């Protein structure tokens, strides 16, 4: 049985475990129909031209992973941003791990989707927001059909989350292959502020496929900063579907740090539903081996006087492949839009490749839209210059690559996150220098 059939038939088993008389279940039932109809995307679709799921879909995934193996904090501490106080929503094999987590209901809600989906006090928010940003694209629909667990974050009006929130997913399963489908909902009410850090980590040698959906609502004047740290093993694949709806004067930023994993697809979608909104999409990709990353972004400018800023840097070595597909839609009403997009890449091996494609659909006539993409190599004369000052070639290369990514890194607002990213980059580039530029 192929994975699609397996999933569709598993839905019946899934229904035995959840409350079928709920708003959410109606949404799930619609979603499984969409998935059944559309199936997994193939390379024939324009948006999937350079990313094939064929290989990873061949694994015999366990759709409902078994209960968690115990993890000790000391063993997984290195995957946390552990040098600052944070809230933590931690999952092991898709199940909530209470002993690794630190949630709250004190003023803000930092807790579990499973609780939000079942407890009456969250009903109104679920009915107002659940699946209201996600599209009917097949992978997002698949996630919706099986949505039962993930992070639920609600920041009420005028509240500031007093510390950053970490969402971590660990895989420890002994099964031959595991499919995880976390579902996150984040609602930042008017004039609130929240910072979130997300990471997926495979701790086994078995394949893991994560098909995640995160819906974020940034209400009037809310500020949401989201950091995705993707540095998983060669057996782990991630399809990240993130949908962000913004209301007037809100600022939402997503930083995506793609440093590893077999296949990573980032579907990042911003919808601007008010005036004077700022959307910020930043990415640093540093890949080697046979790793593949596909950044597929959408910024939908619907109202006037809004801005969007996209800046993605990529460094590709060995046989790594990358894709950047950045779509900007400016509706007729969205006059005075400022939309910027830039994608710069360095290829450090003859076998690495990047496909970069800006897609601009502009229906308004008084807008500023710019886009640019570059593909280059490391500057040999700069390397010799640095070597002549005593910096060995390997370190000189690393420094140049780091400097290349630096303007994206400099916009990270949590210093400890930046410090950790710097460490991962140094590790990835095999050098021991403190990139403190």
């Amino acid at each position, binding site marked *: 049985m192929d994975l699609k059939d397996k999933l569709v038939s598993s839905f019946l088993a899934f229904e035995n475990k959840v409350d079928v008389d709920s708003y959410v279940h109606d949404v799930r039932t619609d979603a499984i129909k969409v998935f059944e109809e559309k199936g997994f995307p193939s390379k024939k679709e324009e948006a999937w031209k350079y990313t094939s799921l064929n290989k990873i879909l061949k694994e015999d995934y366990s759709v409902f992973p078994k209960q968690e193996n115990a993890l000790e904090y000391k063993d997984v501490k290195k995957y946390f941003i552990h040098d600052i106080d944070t809230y933590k929503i931690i999952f092991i094999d898709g199940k909530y791990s209470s002993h690794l987590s630190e949630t709250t209901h004190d003023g803000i809600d930092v807790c579990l989707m499973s609780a939000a989906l079942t407890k009456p006090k969250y009903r109104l928010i679920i009915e107002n927001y659940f699946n209201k940003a996600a599209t009917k694209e097949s992978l997002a629909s698949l996630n919706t059909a099986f949505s039962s667990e993930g992070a639920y974050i609600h920041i009420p009006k005028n509240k500031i989350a007093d510390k950053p929130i970490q969402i971590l997913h660990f895989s420890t399963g002994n099964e031959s292959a595991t499919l995880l489908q976390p579902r996150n909902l984040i609602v930042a009410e008017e004039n609130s502020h929240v910072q979130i850090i997300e990471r997926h980590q495979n701790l086994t040698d078995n394949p893991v496929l994560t098909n995640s959906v995160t819906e974020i609502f940034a209400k009037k004047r809310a500020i949401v900063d989201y950091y995705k740290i993707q540095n998983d093993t060669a057996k782990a694949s991630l399809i990240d579907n993130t949908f962000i709806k913004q209301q007037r004067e809100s600022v939402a930023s997503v930083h995506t740090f793609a440093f590893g994993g077999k296949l990573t697809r980032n579907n990042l979608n911003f919808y601007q539903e008010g005036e004077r909104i700022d959307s910020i999409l930043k990415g640093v990709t540093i890949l080697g081996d046979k790793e593949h990353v596909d950044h597929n972004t959408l910024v939908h400018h619907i109202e006037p006087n809004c801005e969007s800023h996209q800046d993605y840097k990529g460094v590709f070595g060995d046989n790594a492949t990358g894709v950047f597909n950045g779509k900007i839609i400016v509706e007729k009403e969205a006059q005075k839009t400022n939309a910027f997009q830039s994608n710069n890449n360095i290829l450090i091996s003859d076998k690495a490749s990047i496909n970069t494609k800006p897609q601009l659909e502009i229906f308004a006539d008084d807008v500023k839209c710019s886009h640019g993409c570059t593909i280059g190599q490391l500057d040999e*004369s700069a390397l010799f*210059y640095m070597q*002549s*000052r005593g910096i*060995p*070639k390997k370190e000189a290369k690393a*420094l140049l690559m*780091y*400097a290349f990514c630096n303007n994206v890194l400099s916009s990270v607002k949590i210093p400890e996150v930046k410090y950790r990213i710097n460490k991962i980059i140094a590790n990835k580039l095999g050098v021991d*220098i403190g990139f403190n530029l």
Partner: protein
Amino acid sequence: MLKIKDLHASVEDKSILKGINLEVKPGEVHAIMGPNGSGKSTLSSVIAGKEEYEVTKGSIEFDGEDIDELAAEERAHKGIFLSFQYPVEIPGVSVTNFMKTAINESRKAKGLEEMPAKDMLKLIREKSELLEIDRKFLSRSLNEGFSGGEKKRNEIFQMAMLEPKLAILDETDSGLDIDALRIVANGVNKLKSQDNAVVVITHYQRLLDYIVPDYVHVLHNGKIVKSGTKELAHELEEKGYDWIKEEVNA
């Protein structure tokens, strides 16, 4: 300190240096002059270890060791410094952090601990004052958007930070106005001691009024065709290079 014997070098199979002999001892200042295309910059690149240049014959010894097989950074660790004719712009790396990395990598190579941040800042302050460099300048990206004069001053600042045994100044005077020239030359002179040496590569005699050479060599067509004292530089300034070419051809 530096002993070059019958050095032949080529780039992309084009022979550029055709038998150079040069010996530089501690405490000496040598000037290498010559018309454009005579091989001056190639000589400095070959000494510093640029990979594109292949030594086809002869040898370069530094402190009694053949350095031909050493990487550029290893030569730097031994105390060779090249001030570039065209310093390279490195966006995203500040002057301060570039110097920190360079100094700490040299220390690492010598088995020393990293320099404590406090000492580093003190050293940077001291050496930037010597070159009359504004503090704000140090946090800018290396050479990016610097004027010609700023770039050259920055080269000598780096030299002051690294304290090399042998400094090769490749056309350091080009692009400098008279005030900048004085600051740069003053910096070099202050760093000069009985234990280190300077090789000044220049097209014009102007810089040599400030950095006074013990020996002057004329490079032509990949060979040193004439050597003398500082008076030779004055003669070249007055008469140009044509008489040397004629002398060689005759």
